[in-house]
């Protein structure tokens, strides 16, 4: 992995390579500041009142009180967070189960028209939610799902099945089949083989799929904005914009709400980085 800085290790340390190293690190650090400072500014502004926010934007908060955070929480963020959690968890479970189920059928069972099914399911990867938007609104209104959690759960599941199936299928194709065959000879049913053997073997890719789905569902905005309009079912991304229009003059509360909604997903990313990266490299690398 010695791509650039190798000169520092393989060749003798010269003045030039030391200088290059100094440049490299200053660049990485500056870029890190550009990336992180806006986020720190957001969290810090959550501690400020309007007077301070309109003052020097680089100043630290004069008092470290959680007032804005508490207000943001009580004025809607709690409800949005509950909606987001519900929609995210429910759609993650549905997506991963249906996708694993489908991947099993596509890799382990004799099925007529298999290439057709593969093409149909994976072809969904190319279709974008934006294009389906107007017909979906009418459809969901017609079947009475408009402005319900179900609308988001079903849509997030349907639009993410292609990607999850793609990942899990690729993983299942690489799994040895000796165990299934042994179980089948011992009289296990297909259902038993799926639940007891194949699904547990797929655990790493299942976790990756869940992480990628959570990242998508937690942050999704277009569907959530179009298909919900009451604060009772709004998820965080949409709730934030309505919080903004309701408390538009009280900036500190808005900054606090933004910070609260960003935090869980950043923590999740750090906790599950390994699985996340696996999902990405499987998804793009194939």
């Amino acid at each position, binding site marked *: 992995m010695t791509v650039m800085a190798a000169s520092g290790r393989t060749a003798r340390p010269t003045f030039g390579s030391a200088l290059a190293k100094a440049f490299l690190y200053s660049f990485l650090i500056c870029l890190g500041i550009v990336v992180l400072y806006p986020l720190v500014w957001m969290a810090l502004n959550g501690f400020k009142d309007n007077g301070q926010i309109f003052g020097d934007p680089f100043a630290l908060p004069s008092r470290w009180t959680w007032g804005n955070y508490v207000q943001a929480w009580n004025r809607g963020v709690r409800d949005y967070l509950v909606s987001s959690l519900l929609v995210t968890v429910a759609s993650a479970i549905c997506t991963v189960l249906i996708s694993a189920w*489908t991947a099993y059928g596509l890799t382990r069972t004799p099925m007529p028209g298999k290439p057709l099914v593969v093409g149909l399911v994976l072809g969904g990867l190319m279709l974008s939610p934006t294009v389906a938007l107007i017909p979906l609104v009418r459809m969901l209104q017609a079947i009475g799902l408009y402005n319900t959690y179900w609308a988001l759960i079903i849509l997030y599941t349907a639009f993410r099945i292609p990607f999850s199936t793609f990942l899990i299928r690729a993983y299942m194709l690489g799994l040895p089949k000796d165990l299934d065959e042994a179980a089948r000879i011992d009289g296990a049913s297909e259902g038993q083989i799926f639940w007891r053997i194949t699904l547990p073997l797929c655990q790493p890719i299942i976790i990756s799929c869940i992480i990628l789905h959570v990242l998508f569902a937690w942050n999704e905005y277009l569907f959530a904005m*179009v298909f919900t309009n009451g604060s009772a079912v709004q998820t965080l991304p949409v709730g934030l914009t309505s919080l903004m229009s309701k408390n538009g003059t009280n900036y500190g509360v808005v900054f606090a709400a933004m910070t609260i909604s960003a935090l869980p997903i950043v923590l999740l990313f750090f906790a599950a980085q390994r699985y996340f990266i696996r999902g990405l490299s499987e998804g793009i690398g194939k």
Partner: protein
Amino acid sequence: MEGAPLSNAAGEPAAKAGRPFRHWSSLRWVAGAVILVGWFVYYPIVDNFIVSTTDEDIFTGETTNIGLANYERLLHDPVVWVALWNNTLYALISIIFQVGGAFVLAALIEGLGSERQRRFWRAIYFIPSAISITVTGLLFYFIYQPDIGLLNAGLRRIGLEQLIQPWLGSEHTAIYAIIAMSQWQGFGYSTLLFAIAIQKIPRDLYDAAVMDGAGPLRRLWSVTLPLTREMTGLMIIVTITGAFQVFNEVMVMTAGGPNNRSQVLGTWLYQQGFIQNNFGYGAAIAAVIFAVTMITGAAQLWYTRRRRVEL
């Protein structure tokens, strides 16, 4: 299903004659996915074309078939051309930063001495990508504000007062300000993907290059670049597809304004379909997005197929 035929190594089950019902019954494994994807992903796309040939009277709810009139209207709608240009700008600038820039950055990071350091920098740069575009969009909405914003205050502090702008309020800078936010948010993601691709390059290739006396730049150009070509190609295609589907950040930051100068196809579709209630015309705009994503999608298929043959 205990009597189901055994599968062969390629994952294609060996077909056995005489028990066709078992074959058909295995369709139950895929039924859920086929129904959901068919109903909520494919059918709306087909329906979109039907809607795009109609005009709906919002008062009476009556729809009339008007053929291709909505598409003709597209050609004469100046905002559509602004939007198309903005989407194209989005694609071009994103290719520079999120493909070109991310590639170089990934190579720099993967060249660092210890795995702990590499992991640290990849994670730091990735953080904005984990956060929802609504949050980052709102954040930059504030950063670009003339009165409380970080950007103008920063420019003032370093003595570049002549550059001070109402970034999102000006017709000339709004779309660039939005695209800049998007680069800030997205480059860490593509850096991570390039880092994964670079990690797959066998080490001995670099050792051999060092023995041949190749310097760092030479190794970047002659080893890293050609061996991550597939990833680069894919990233370009994915970036273009994404650029033509942009919606969230524009919606949150300017909603297409001022004076429709920062409209993209997605927000113009929303404006027409849901604010003006021109479902038919909105659907015609959606069809343009569909056409672009189909072309890039076909390019992607062709690219991955070709690559598979090469390997």
